[in-house]
């Protein structure tokens, strides 16, 4: 049995749909940014993926800590405070998977880090018993700062194999991101893969994942699965009470009258938009018949 997730008209809306009224049917665009917008398309292009946040990645027995690109070049800029928060979150969420004493290679990319910031990163890693082995930076200032602070540094002019490999292979998703935390208002998690949260997702927070989203807790915020356009992705939560659900390009909002009690549920794209099913009754067979194109 599949229960309908009541968005407006029981289906989804792509955007706040214009009503029949005359003045509601308009197209409004802002003027393009004067100058400089077109000036450096080459620079912005490699970082066009907005879903880049701090991530750990294991590669050939090494643990890579990959920082998001420099904020000034990104559409979703990650500034230092936010970077620190994300790093903390990643470490706390994955500490059971991060083997102590695994050497960490910090891929700073084109980010500007001062020696104090490098030391702070090192301190956070040390808390999880992860030694900072080496720093790769493409910015000279960062390399110098890290070297001054006494770290082993490698300055790279190109980050082909480490930092930017993921942009090149756009189709391959990253390994799942495992978070053990409560996501509070204002926090946005973006990941090029599946996101698993052991904790609550509070109103005002959001998750944008290119894969599935699993919430082992209350889901009250905004979650977007299959953000890269994959309509096969699902959202599961123990307590599904989201502000809004999005899968691929579909949007559904929570019902106006919430159910009396909650059970684990699954959201997926059905023939007429986003639907929700009880997890217990969500048979795989159902999925295949409804979803396979």
């Amino acid at each position, binding site marked *: 049995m599949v229960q309908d997730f009541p968005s407006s008209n029981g289906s989804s809306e792509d955007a706040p749909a*214009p009503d029949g009224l005359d003045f509601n049917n308009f*197209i*409004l665009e802002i003027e393009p940014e004067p100058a400089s917008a077109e000036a450096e398309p080459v620079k912005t292009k490699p970082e066009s993926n907005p879903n880049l946040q701090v991530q750990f990645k294991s590669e050939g027995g090494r643990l890579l800590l990959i920082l998001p690109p420099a904020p000034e070049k990104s559409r979703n800029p990650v500034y230092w405070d*936010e970077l620190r928060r994300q790093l903390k979150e990643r470490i706390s969420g994955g500490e059971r998977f991060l083997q102590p004493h695994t050497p960490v290679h910090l891929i700073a990319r084109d980010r500007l880090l001062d020696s104090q910031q490098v030391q702070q990163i090192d301190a956070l890693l040390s808390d999880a018993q992860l030694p900072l082995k080496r720093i790769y930076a493409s910015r000279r200032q960062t390399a110098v700062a890290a070297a001054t602070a006494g770290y082993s540094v490698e300055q790279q002019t190109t980050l082909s194999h480490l930092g930017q490999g993921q942009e090149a292979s756009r189709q391959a998703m990253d390994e799942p991101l495992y978070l053990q935390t409560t996501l509070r208002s204002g926090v946005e998690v973006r990941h090029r893969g599946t996101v698993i949260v052991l904790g609550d997702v509070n109103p005002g927070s959001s998750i944008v994942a290119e894969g599935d989203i699993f919430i082992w807790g209350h889901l009250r915020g905004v979650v977007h699965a299959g953000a890269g356009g994959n309509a096969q992705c699902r959202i599961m939560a123990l307590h599904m009470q989201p502000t809004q659900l999005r899968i691929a390009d579909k949007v559904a909002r929570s019902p106006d009258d919430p159910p009396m009690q909650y059970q684990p549920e699954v959201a997926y794209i059905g023939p007429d938009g986003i639907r929700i099913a009880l997890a217990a009754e969500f048979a795989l067979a159902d999925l295949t018949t409804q979803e396979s194109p």
Partner: protein
Amino acid sequence: MSRIIVMTSGKGGVGKTTCTANLGMALAKAGQRVAVVDADFGLRNLDLLLGLENRIVYTALDVLAGECRLDQALVKDKRQPNLALLPAAQNRSKESIKPEQMKRLIKALTKVYNFILIDSPAGIEMGFRNSIAAAREAIIVTTPEISAVRDADRVIGLLEANDIKAVRLVINRLRPAMVAAEQMMSVKDVQGILSIPLLGVIPDDEQVIVSTNKGEPLVLEEKLSKAGIAFTNVSQRLQGEKVPLMDLSIPQDSFFTRLKRLFGM
């Protein structure tokens, strides 16, 4: 010519956002085409007061990033189609938007809407500067409290320095009984100190909390509460009508009522 009005106060928690929601809704009810703009990036709340939080798909930041058109980001109100909300981003810092970008957003909105209310964040930092960048008029929201009036005064000075000449005052959360007991500044006191034209006085009203809980501005109620009437009056004055100030005086204690109180009746 569209009217671009920033709602600001300096101090937080005086009811800026409540005023914006109610004023926007009241103007829309009166047939004006109204866009309310949440300029509080990082700590948005206007969507909650309007009950539109679950309809937000894109935010102003997405528009600026070129990820959607402006009309796609506007959340139209089902109850009142004349009203649209331009939501702020919840997740990014206030520094992520510049005054120049705000101007571009507002300028585009003027093509469709004749009232644009900008809900400014508290404080006088970047968020405030963004919200006043495009404004031509300002409504100062204050309460009859020393800290709120002081901050309002500071903000009035900043607005004048930024060439926003039409600055008007809304006094929120007035408690007539306390004024009568000489335990609260009166409307006259506050206006005398700030010396800007008075647009209206909103009495303290528990219904405000109820309406916030429901996400339904007071002015939508069928039977308007005192605060609801006051907000409607403010909107009418804003449209140039002459509406006398509401009578907020409380009936004098008669001997009989005192007697009743004496015996705990």
